[in-house]
């Protein structure tokens, strides 16, 4: 049964990635400035050179042909060449992915620990006073764009990787705190409380097992949030990861690199969501 579910998830991921890549490439193709190169503004270039620059985009004009070529290259392990950096994309990705993975993994781990550490005291004690400071902190952090969190970190000289944690933590806190509060109000929890069980025991045995599947489901979503936050944080804190590469590619209008990065992050997001989905089904058995 589990293998069937895993196979279905894998098939869904493959189809979604293929369609997602096509959708991404189509959006790029029909963007208002597609095919325009900044070098065209250089007044020193002759008409023939500008025409040659325009012709270099000709292969990308038919989005289906571009995407078919991209997929056939992908099957051979060839991701193409970055137009702006003039280097093989596979080489760029192999250099940049470890940086982003380390940053995102640290940010997720620290963000989840911080978010849960803020949510649990209020859930254990049940006193609203324990939620005032965490509520204020999470509200303040949710009010800041991730790029601004990175800027403030640079200003105070804080460690950059922690910036992703501060983007994730308030979301984890709000979601898990609401979920724990809802679960704590369920009849079986009230019955356990009436029987005189300690608050910690109620939390560990009667609240967390019920809330766990939905908290795990947030883990999948938090991966995509962390990758989204990694773009401005890598740019501002100067981490040479794929977020910074995406920004450089966006500024340089490097379509092959952008399509590859979009597909890569889509795969990571889908795998994370599927993994949390598969993890939820066995753990939800207790309900």
């Amino acid at each position, binding site marked *: 049964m589990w293998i069937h579910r895993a196979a279905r998830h894998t098939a869904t991921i493959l189809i*979604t990635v293929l369609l997602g890549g096509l959708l991404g490439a189509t959006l790029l193709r029909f963007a208002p*400035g597609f095919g*325009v190169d900044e070098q065209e503004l250089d007044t020193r270039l002759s008409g023939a050179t500008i025409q040659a620059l325009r012709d270099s985009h000709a292969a990308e004009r038919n989005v289906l042909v571009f995407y078919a070529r991209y997929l056939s290259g992908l099957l051979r392990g060839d991701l193409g060449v970055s137009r702006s950096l003039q280097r093989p994309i596979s080489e760029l990705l192999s250099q940049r992915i470890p940086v982003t993975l380390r940053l995102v993994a640290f940010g997720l781990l620290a963000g989840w620990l911080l978010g849960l550490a803020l949510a649990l005291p209020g859930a254990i004690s049940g006193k609203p006073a324990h939620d005032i400071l965490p509520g204020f902190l999470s509200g303040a952090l*949710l009010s*800041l764009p991730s790029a601004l969190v990175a800027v403030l970190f640079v200003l105070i000289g804080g460690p950059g990787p922690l910036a992703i944690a501060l983007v994730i933590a308030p979301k984890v806190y709000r979601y898990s705190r609401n979920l724990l509060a809802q679960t704590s109000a369920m009849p079986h929890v009230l019955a356990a409380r009436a029987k005189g069980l300690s608050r910690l025991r109620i939390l560990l045995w009667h609240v967390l097992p019920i809330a766990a599947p939905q908290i795990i489901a947030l883990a999948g979503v938090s991966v995509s949030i962390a990758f*989204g936050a990694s773009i401005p944080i890598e740019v501002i804190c100067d981490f040479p990861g794929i977020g910074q590469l995406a920004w450089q590619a966006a500024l340089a209008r490097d379509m092959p690199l*952008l399509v590859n990065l979009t597909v890569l992050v889509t795969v990571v997001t889908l795998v994370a969501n599927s993994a949390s989905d598969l993890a939820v089904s066995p753990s939800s058995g207790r309900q």
Partner: protein
Amino acid sequence: MKTLRQFVWGILILVFAASLMAGLLAPAPYGQQFRDSTNAGPSRRFPLGTDELGRDRLSRLLYGSRVSLLLAPAAALLSTFIAALIGGLAGYLGGWWERLIMRFIDLSLSLPWLFLLLTVRALLPLNVSPVASVSITFALLGLLGWAGPARVVRSGVRSLTSSGFVLQARACGCRGSRLLVMQVLPNLKPILQAQFWISVPVFILAEANLGLLGLGVSEPLPSWGNLLRGLENYGAVRSNPWTLAPVLLLVIVMGSLHLVFPGEDYYS
């Protein structure tokens, strides 16, 4: 809690009114340069000082607030409209149509939208005017932010179409567009309003992120995004703390919006 909400509403109305009256309240036009007073500190003439080009910071903050606070709701209106159309159709038609539209919504939700937003925003024509850039930036936010709300709308329509009063209307012979317009849409209003208000802070944050990355509203037109870009001059911020005024205003407005309309954000 009610008093706090009223207070927060008061703040939001005050900021919104001040930004709408930027033309009256601002000491100078947002693009006017006072070249004899570049990087000036706060004074009677320039209450928040001037930037490196000699432009009055208070005027730019007021006009920038107007751009962000008018266009983020416009983008939210666009995304809520698309969500209502697509989610409403999925929920109302049901069957194969619903499954097909839901797969499309799932596909849209699985794409890394900040990556796509960066990309499509970067592919704007090179000679685009500031007004066109601000319109396109917020239109893109609206066009890319419909998928999450569409899911909620579809669930709302599904529960409405199977509710007692709709069944009764059907039994009375009310069908098709009449049923949709007279029975379903009026009851969908609270869901659409909630989705609209949840989207507003999301789009304000998205524009701020794009602005900080240099891909938001083009100069000289101010917005909260490109005003925050001034903070990248780290040395100047340490010695001139009044340059943090846009951060303070953003936190106040966003905190107020989160307090009044709690929700999720996808782009931060």
